[in-house]
């Protein structure tokens, strides 16, 4: 141990004669790899990739840049990355990644990038730039999102047994719901409030339209219009995580599902109760 310390000390002394020390260069390289791998993982996790894909991609990128010892532990809302770049010391970074919107376009791009990195098409700097570009990829324009939410609501209302007339009403209320959701996202409402208010509002709209003779079945209209909020995919993902042995991720997704579902039901049932009280 002492011998090695002396040896390292001599090497550092040697490097000190130049402007930059060996340690500096090693540190820069380490930082770069760290940031690159972490950023790739963060984009993937943040935008809805599966846990195993996040871990695999991070390891692949690190190995492509010559790091042999890399350990990744990913859970639904956080990343732990340990890397040994210089052959002596391990370093660890931890990053919290909130569960938020899904942007599968970004997942696809990072996937392509990692394939190109393995093929040797990117230097670290270029890869970092590319990742910055991917992280800034825009969402679909708001108007289109609102319109698609309407179409989705109408289609689901029909699939779940509503009549075409109900679907039409669902289209309107789903459309209005997403206008509110986008407004709430811009104002950075807390998730629970956004969903409670959104589902209460959409219930009120549906009741009003139903009251004025639009639609045949209020139940189908409401379920159609809130379907864009319902966490069906999160529940399925959670169970897939359990099957894969990622118990922690599964639990996190399950809790998220329950929270969202409860918020929706609170919104809908409170609004129905209030309406019944006054009429």
């Amino acid at each position, binding site marked *: 141990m002492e011998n090695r310390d002396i040896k390292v000390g001599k090497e550092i002394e040697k490097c000190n004669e130049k402007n930059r020390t060996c340690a500096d260069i090693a540190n820069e390289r380490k930082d770069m790899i760290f940031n690159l791998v972490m950023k790739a993982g963060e984009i993937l996790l943040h935008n809805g990739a599966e846990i195993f894909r996040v871990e695999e991609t991070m390891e692949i990128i690190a190995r492509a840049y010559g790091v042999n010892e890399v350990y990744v532990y990913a859970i639904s809302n956080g990343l732990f990355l340990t890397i040994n770049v210089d052959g002596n010391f391990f370093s660890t970074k931890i990053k919290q990644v909130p569960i938020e919107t899904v942007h599968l376009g970004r997942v696809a791009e990072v996937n392509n990038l990692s394939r190109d990195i393995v093929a040797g098409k990117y230097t670290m700097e270029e890869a970092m730039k590319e990742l910055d570009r991917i992280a800034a990829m825009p*969402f679909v324009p708001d108007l289109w999102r609102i319109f698609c939410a309407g179409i989705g609501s109408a289609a689901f209302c029909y699939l779940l047994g509503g009549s075409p007339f109900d679907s039409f009403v669902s289209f309107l209320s789903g459309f209005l719901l997403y206008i509110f959701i986008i407004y709430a996202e811009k104002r950075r409402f807390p998730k629970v409030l956004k969903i409670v208010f959104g589902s209460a509002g959409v219930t009120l709209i549906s009741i009003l339209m139903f009251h004025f003779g639009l639609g045949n079945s209020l139940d189908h209209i409401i379920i159609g219009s809130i379907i864009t909020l319902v966490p069906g995919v999160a*529940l*399925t993902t959670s169970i897939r995580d359990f099957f894969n042995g990622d118990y922690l991720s599964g639990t996190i997704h399950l809790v998220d599902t329950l929270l969202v579902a409860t918020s929706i*039901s609170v919104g809908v049932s409170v609004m129905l109760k209030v309406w019944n009280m006054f009429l």
Partner: protein
Amino acid sequence: MASMVIQLIASFFATVSFAFLFNVPKKEFFYCGITGTIGWFFYLLLYNFLSSVVFATLIASVALTIVSRLFAVNRKLPVTIFLISGIFPLVPGAGIYYTTYYIFTHEISLAVEKGVQTISIALAIAFGIMLVFVIPQRCFLWGRRQR
């Protein structure tokens, strides 16, 4: 029969609109839609024959996952893109909502019934996906050679 065709069209649009909300690249909308439609087709078919929601969902998710893996290999994209959008019609979103809704209206027996069904559907989907994911990747390569 006619209603089935309309249902399939509706499932196509449902899938595409969710693909949109998930920011799937525009080129893939059609393939996402097809994935969702195939899933819903198998679901309807088996549900009419067997009238068991869980079993129909299981087979439908197997079919749908096979299709999305084929698309993923052919179009060199992560399978998630086709899977998440395509699975949407099958996913027990309404079930989750009804379960919590009945809890709030104190209709506990209905809530338990819906809850058990929701969990079984989710289990069936997850199991179906897992069944297809254990098939080795090379089995899905034949489509690519043909192109």
